[in-house]
Structures are given as structure tokens and as C-alpha cells.
């Protein structure tokens, strides 16, 4: 699928090679920007480019049309080389209305291409977008390459023969814009033809109209003189294998399902709808043919409680949520810690506090995941760093939960959940084994000891109700080790507190050493966790090319921390930790290792831009006297 045969013959204008492009589609929530971006992404992935995406949408399903809060955007970056982020400033901005223009123009790269839909520039439209004057005529747009197209008019003309009413026709204007971009970037239209035919299989008139609009856009770009050049971005050199484009929530689901199968366990998801985690509930509920049970509970508490009940009875209990739901689940997670049952908690973080900004991203639930429960209540915490990485992290969470009989919190975030990237598919036969041994039937005359422990892991046995000879009682009350009987004895309580902590600490012996990009000593180590990984990697690589002694690393395991982390941190003059919170991991590391970790905090609901991290690190390096060799390289 790496040729562009459908289109290459039709280009008789100039064709220029680029190694990467960043495109942002912006319009009203109802303009279909997410669909347009998604189609461009699929096509581009199939054409062999590396790609990263960043959908950015409002919380309201349909905010008032034409207003600033109603603007929905989708940014994608594709390239001929390995990329780590969906890019900072777009090269191309598609703005479907004045509001989208207003919100996104400031970020468009100077000299960048602005494809502007001129259909709705009435005085009212301008007012809704808070423009006092028409930006097309007052010099606002100078400095960019502006292409003005009345997309609505053009689409209506193109669909003259369609059976749709005018409103229905107008709604195809996003496909017209997509057609223009497909021509500009030399994309194959066949995958979209197929996808649209599938999406609207039951409504042939919609398939026809959408495809007609797309082709008309393509032809318009090809024939009119406003478009002088088309661009080609040749495929990237990617690791050999089979790929699939994947979003973070999707791959997290696949990770837990794969792990469940490897472990021979029935998966039980208890969940309550919450942005941006609901897609996990949606997706797992389509895996009934894999035996996955999904339970849409009456609230967040019931969601986690039902998962605990499922784990108690021998399934693998999972619950998915975001920050506010995490807060509600705290007491029940404590019960799972006391009952020493496996439980996987998927927290797709969003911007808090309180309701915050549900569709925006943040990493501020780390301390909540670590400590947000009453008593000394340790759980394992691991974090996904990219959409594809979420597969491995979901898988690992299940492995740890059943091996150590402990709740495992997986931290993802909105940026990972809705972003996408090509995923090198793993060989299912080579995924790590997840052995599960339920307690065997008890012998007559013997008493089952629910808190007898595996001497190595300290995990207790998983005793399934329904198994002969195993009747026993457990609960949230402190119990005697080994017997599980209620026990208020002082020494026993200290022993149980220590044991539960040690059990989680033991996981550190079971995890791989830290990986770094760059040497394990130097001036600066940029440490990250979660979705900052891409921006950190991009900035670090650039600084390395500029001649600095800088390395970066990304933590997957946040509790327990890897055994070799301290030595790694001590190998650098300075450790910088960018986080989308007020320095939560920095605080943990500073207190644990007494190392002066420097927090670089950004909590604005947006992912870090790699050029911001680059600029910050430059200053840090300069303060250490490192000026680099000042080579200019690509972004």
C-alpha cells in the first residue's frame, strides 16, 4: 500500500518532496473535523509514513455553532522519519469558520498555508468569533499563504445531482476540504472511499454525496490556479513488521484482553461513563466473543466494587475511569488492598481539579494514585507513554495484579487516549506468560489459611468461591496474617502494614532496568513519565544533535520505582522533570532520593510542545556552561 497510483498520474503541476508536514483541521464541533482528521490519518498510515495525532475538542457535544468555545480541532503530523509528537506549530491550517480561524491562526507557522472556508463571514459570524473587523481585509492574515474557498458553495455545486437536501449537502463540506488536502499532499483516496462506504453502508445516498464532495475537492485543487504545487512526503523508514494505526484507549483495551487470554482469566470490566475513558467501556463491550463481561454500573463506586467482587470470585476485575471517578473509588481500592485481590484500575487522566476540563489532558492524578486513600495503602502504579505503549502497559498491569495479588493503577491521559500512532503489532505467541494458580481444593480436616503467603512475592493465594474445602472469611478489617481472622493486635497490625508495603516493593525485582536515549551520565537527564515522553524525546534528540551532553528516560513504573533509578539520576549534573502537573513526581523523587530534581511544570490542559521543552533545557544547559556545538538541525 505504498504507492499512490490513483493520484500520481493526475499531477501535472509541480510536485515537491517534504520530509514532514503538520496539518491542523479546525471547525465547529459539528463540522466533522475529527472524522476528517481520522480519514487523513488512516490514509497516511497506510501509505507508510510515521504519523502522530492530537484531537483537541470541546467538552460540549455541540457548543453553539460558530462560537469560540465550539471549535474542535484535529492535528496530525506525518513524516518520512521517526517522529515522537504530533508537532508544535502547524504548517497547514484548515479553518472552517471565523471562530476556528481566531482560535488557531496564532499557532500557524509563519509562511504556513491557511485554507480558509469563506462561506460564513457575515457580520454575525464575525461577531460570534469576536472579530471586530473582517480578518480577511484588515491585514490579519498577512504573513501566511492564504487560500480562500467558499466550501459550502463549492460543495453545493458539486452535489447538484445528489438526493440530499441542502443542509445534508452542506454537511459534506469537510469531505470537500479533505479532497483538496489529498491533492495537496499527494494522498491516495482509495482508503477513504472504502471507509466511507463502510461507515454509511446503510445510507447509499450519504456514501455517494461524501465521495462526490471529496473527489470534487480533489479536482478543484488540481484544476484551479490557486493551488500551484502538490507535496509528497515519502514513506518513513520504519522497523519491519505489521502495523496498525491505534489510539491509546483502544490499545489499552487490547492489552488487558490479550493479558486476560494469556492468563486464562475471564475479564470483568465494571465502569461508569466518564470522559475521556468511556471509549474503554465501549470497546470492551464489543469483546463479548472473547468472554469479556462489561458492567455499566450505577456509579463509579459500584463500578470498582463490582470489579472487586469479580476478582474475588476468580475473574480479573478491571475498572476504567478518570480523575473524579478515581476520587470516588478510593475507599474501595483500599478494600482491594486489604483483601489482597488483583484489580486493574485504568485512570485516563484529564484536567482537574473537580470537573476541570474533561476533554483536556493533564498528569495531576499521580499523587492521588499513589497516596489518595486512607491509611497506609500501597498499590502498584504504572503509566502508559504513547498510544501504542498503552498495549504493553495494560498487559503488564494484569501480570502484576495477579502475580502480586494487588491493585494496579494504570495512568494514561487524554492526550494518549485520543491520540494515535502506527503500532508495530506484537506476535501474540511471544507475549510474556501470565501464570495463574488458584488455590486447590482443601483436604478434609484441614483449615484453609487465606493469608498464607508465597515467600518470594508475599502474595496470598487466590481462593475461588465454589472450591471445596476453601471456605474462609476476608474483609476490610485488619486481620491476622496467615489465618485471616479479625485481629486488633498491635504487633500484627504493624506486621501487616509492613507486609502489604513490602509486597508492592517486591515488584521492583520484577521489572526491567531503565532505558535511556543517550549515555547514562552527562550534564542533564530529562526524566519523564506518561505522555510527555514524545515531546521530551524530540527535544532531547535535537539538543544531542546540537552537541549537548543530555540524555532522556521515561518511567513506566512509578510504584515501585526501578531499582537502578537512583544511580541513573546521580549520573547527571542536573535532572529535569517536565510534568503536566505542579511537580508531583519531582516531589516523590526529591523526598525519596534527596536529589535536587528540577521540576518543569506546565498545567494548561495542553501537551508540552517540544520546542518549549527545548528552550527550557537550553537555559538549564547554559546554566551548567554547556553551549553545544550550535549545529542547526530539523525540528
Amino acid at each position, binding site marked *: 500500500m505504498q504507492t499512490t497510483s490513483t493520484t500520481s498520474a493526475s499531477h501535472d503541476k509541480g510536485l515537491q518532496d517534504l520530509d514532514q508536514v503538520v496539518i491542523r483541521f479546525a471547525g465547529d464541533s459539528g463540522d466533522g473535523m475529527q472524522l476528517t482528521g481520522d480519514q487523513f490519518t488512516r490514509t497516511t498510515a497506510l501509505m507508510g509514513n510515521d504519523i502522530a495525532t492530537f484531537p483537541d475538542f470541546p467538552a460540549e457535544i455541540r457548543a453553539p455553532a460558530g462560537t469560540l468555545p465550539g471549535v474542535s480541532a484535529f492535528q496530525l503530523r506525518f513524516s518520512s522519519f521517526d517522529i515522537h509528537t504530533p508537532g508544535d506549530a502547524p504548517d497547514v491550517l484548515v479553518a472552517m469558520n471565523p471562530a476556528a480561524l481566531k482560535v488557531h491562526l496564532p499557532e500557524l507557522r509563519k509562511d504556513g498555508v491557511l485554507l480558509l472556508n469563506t462561506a460564513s463571514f457575515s457580520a454575525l459570524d464575525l461577531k460570534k468569533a469576536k472579530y471586530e473587523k473582517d480578518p480577511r481585509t484588515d491585514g490579519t492574515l498577512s504573513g501566511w499563504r492564504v487560500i480562500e474557498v467558499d466550501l459550502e458553495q463549492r460543495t453545493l455545486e458539486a452535489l447538484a445531482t445528489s438526493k440530499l437536501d441542502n443542509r445534508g449537502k452542506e454537511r459534506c463540506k469537510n469531505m470537500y476540504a479533505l479532497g483538496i488536502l489529498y491533492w495537496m499532499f499527494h494522498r491516495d483516496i482509495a482508503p477513504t472511499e472504502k471507509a466511507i462506504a463502510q461507515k454509511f453502508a446503510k445510507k447509499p445516498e450519504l456514501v455517494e454525496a461524501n465521495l462526490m464532495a471529496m473527489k470534487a475537492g480533489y479536482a478543484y485543487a488540481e484544476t484551479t490556479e490557486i493551488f500551484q504545487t502538490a507535496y509528497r512526503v515519502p514513506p518513513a523508514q520504519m522497523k519491519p513488521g505489521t502495523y*496498525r494505526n491505534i489510539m491509546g484507549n483502544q490499545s489499552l483495551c487490547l492489552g488487558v484482553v490479550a493479558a486476560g487470554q494469556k492468563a486464562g482469566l475471564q475479564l470483568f470490566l465494571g465502569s461508569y461513563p466518564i470522559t475521556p475513558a468511556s471509549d474503554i467501556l465501549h470497546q470492551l463491550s464489543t469483546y*463479548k466473543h472473547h*468472554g469479556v463481561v462489561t458492567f455499566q454500573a450505577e456509579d463509579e463506586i459500584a463500578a470498582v466494587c*463490582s470489579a*472487586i467482587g469479580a476478582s474475588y470470585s476468580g475473574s480479573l476485575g478491571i475498572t476504567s475511569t478518570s480523575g473524579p471517578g478515581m476520587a470516588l473509588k478510593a475507599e474501595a481500592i483500599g*478494600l482491594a488492598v486489604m483483601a489482597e485481590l488483583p484489580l486493574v484500575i485504568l485512570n485516563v487522566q484529564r484536567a482537574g481539579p473537580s470537573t476541570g476540563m474533561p476533554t483536556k489532558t493533564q498528569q495531576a492524578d499521580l499523587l492521588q494514585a499513589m497516596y489518595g486513600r486512607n491509611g497506609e495503602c500501597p498499590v502498584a502504579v504504572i503509566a502508559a507513554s504513547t498510544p501504542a505503549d498503552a498495549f504493553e502497559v495494560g498487559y503488564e498491569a494484569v501480570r502484576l495484579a495477579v502475580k502480586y495479588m494487588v491493585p494496579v493503577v494504570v495512568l494514561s491521559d487524554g492526550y494518549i487516549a485520543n491520540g494515535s500512532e502506527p503500532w508495530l503489532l506484537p506476535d501474540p505467541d511471544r507475549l510474556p506468560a501470565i501464570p495463574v494458580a488458584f488455590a486447590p481444593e482443601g483436604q478434609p480436616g484441614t483449615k484453609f489459611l487465606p493469608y498464607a503467603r508465597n515467600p518470594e512475592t508475599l502474595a496470598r493465594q487466590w481462593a475461588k468461591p465454589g472450591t471445596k474445602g476453601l471456605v474462609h472469611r476476608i*474483609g476490610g478489617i485488619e486481620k491476622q496474617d496467615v489465618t485471616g481472622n479479625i485481629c486488633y493486635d498491635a504487633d500484627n497490625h504493624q506486621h501487616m502494614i509492613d507486609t502489604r508495603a513490602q509486597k508492592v516493593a517486591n515488584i521492583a525485582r520484577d521489572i526491567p532496568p531503565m532505558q535511556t536515549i543517550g549515555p547514562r551520565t552527562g550534564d542533564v537527564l530529562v526524566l519523564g513519565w506518561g505522555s510527555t515522553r514524545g515531546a521530551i524525546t524530540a527535544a532531547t534528540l535535537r539538543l544531542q544533535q546540537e552537541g549537548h551532553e543530555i540524555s532522556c528516560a521515561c518511567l513506566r513504573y512509578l510504584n515501585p520505582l526501578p531499582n537502578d533509578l537512583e544511580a541513573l539520576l546521580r549520573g547527571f549534573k542536573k535532572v529535569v522533570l517536565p510534568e503536566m502537573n505542579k511537580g508531583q513526581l519531582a516531589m516523590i523523587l526529591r523526598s525519596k532520593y534527596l536529589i535536587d530534581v528540577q521540576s518543569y511544570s506546565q498545567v494548561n490542559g495542553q501537551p508540552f510542545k517540544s520546542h518549549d521543552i527545548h528552550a527550557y533545557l537550553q537555559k538549564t544547559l547554559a546554566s551548567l556552561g554547556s553551549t553545544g556545538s550550535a549545529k542547526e538541525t530539523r525540528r
Partner: protein
Amino acid sequence: MTATPALSKKDYKTDQEVRWCPGCGDYSILNAVQGAFSKLGKQLHETVIVSGIGCSSRFPYYMETFGFHTIHGRAPAIATGVKTSNPALDVWVVTGDGDAMSIGGNHFIHAMRRNVGLKILMFNNRIYGLTKGQFSPTSEQGKVTKSSPLGTVDYPFSPIALSLGAGGTFIARGIDVFGPHLEDTICKASAHTGTALVEIYQNCNIFNDGAYKGFTDKEVREERILYLEHGKPLLFGANKDKGIRFDANFQPQLVTGADLGKAYVWDETAANVAPAMALATMNEAEFPVPVGVFRRREKPTFESGIQAQITAAKAKKKESLRDLLFAGEIWDVK
């Protein structure tokens, strides 16, 4: 129950010392449950008892079955996970009026609504015992307690009426001191496939002693208790000389003498919930107190619906793990 008792009451006793206050109604409930279980023909390991928090919720420790003493109010949610993930288990919830009606009210009504195959024994003592005597959602208005020195302003509600409203399919009431009747009611609950609620009036002799004295004392019992018997008229009194009928608006009326024949014939399986609702909300001072089965309607259970979807999906689509992962638009890089 026709099944031969495989186990005796004694088999259900654990080695744990029972720690309710001496004289607490919970003892007689434990006795009735052990009596009922010994008649159900189940094996010890097939049963799971899930409880929340409160005096009643210590119950699992005293039953030689699987037991899970969980957190305040959440037992129905946890039990829903247990039953849905393994429908073969016999799953019981033991809870109280604070646990089920207050902090756990949401889980309670949704278990009713879904018709999960749980048997819920709710010990209603109209007080918070474990926290030493605050009023509960079933305490009568004006009740003076530690947290309501001038009497409560809150109105109580009827757990039976709440359950009827939530679509419960088996709803019954027993009383701690009516051992054989309670045991029988628990057996009936057990025979029901969907959610079964047994509200058990329980005397807390420490913080709310005598709450039910007005109709449970031996001297008044016969005149004050209305035994609901399926297919029989609603009659009460030592000589069955009083009855209940409903007017056109389903308001209860006392009938005596020549009108006794107009007493309503009780049908616990009726589709119409109005008669049960009328009985559940009858003024306790004016009318007798109904015990027995208010409602019993078979309806497919939640867990059977879930399992049926999974079975059908598995029959319809076989997919290997490889096919699951290698799905959608995939491409090869050489």
C-alpha cells in the same frame, strides 16, 4: 423445601466467637439463617455471603461459608460482581438499614432494578448500632438520639415500598423473634432466581430497645400482625376476625363481622404493585403490620442475560488473539 438436608445447623457455625451484644436480635436471625441454610441442600463452599458495615455486617464471620466483609453500603455492588462473574454461586448480601438504605441506597435500588440473583437480608433496627445510636433512614420522625437531641426532623421511608418502586421481584418481611416464620421466608427467598429482599425487623436492645414491641410482644402479636399468605384472604387477629380490603383507590380499610368475606385475597405474584404498595405504606399505628411475601414475580436475571449475550457472541464469532490484534487496516513494512 423438599431437598434432603445434607447439612445441619451446626455445620454452618464457625470457630469465631459471636460478638453481638447479649440479647441482640441478630442472634435469632443467625439461628434462623443457619436453620434455613441447612434445609437448602447446598454445600458450604457453594455459598458466598457479602456484607457491608454495621452490626449486621459482622454476619459472615459466623457462617462457615465463603464470606466477604466489605465496606459501608457497597455489598450489593460487590455481590453483583461476584454473581455476574460466576452465576453458579449462591450469593447472599447481609446488610442493615443504615448500610443499605442510607450510604448504600444507590446500589440497593440498582440491584433491585437489574434483578441480579442476590438474596439480600436487611436487618432493620431503625437505628445506627455500631456507631452507638444515631437515627437511621427508617427511624420514626421525632426520634430522640445522640445526633437528634430534639428529635429528628427527617421522615423515614419504607424499605419495602422503596424496593417495590425499584422494580424488585421478591420482597418480603420477617421479624427476628418469629424464628420459624423467618426461616421459612428465607427459604422462599432462596428459591427465587432474581434479587430477593427480606427485610428483617431486628431489635437493638442497646440503642433502640423495644422498637417493635408494639406488635411483637406475645400479648399483642396475634392482634397486630398480618401474615401474608399467598391465595388466602388478608385476615388477622387471634380468631382471624379482622381483615383488610382495599377501596377503589387502593386505600386499605379494616373489615370485620359480616364484611369479613370482603377481605382481599392475597396474590404475591400479582402484576399490579398497588396492593403490595398499599400494605407497605399502611400506617403502623392504625393497621396491623404485614409480614411474609409482599411480591414474588419471576423475571430473567441480570447474570443470565449477560451470560446469554456472551454465549451467543462466542457462537457467532470465533476470533483468535492474533486476529483480534491484527484487525482493521494493517500494513506491512519490509
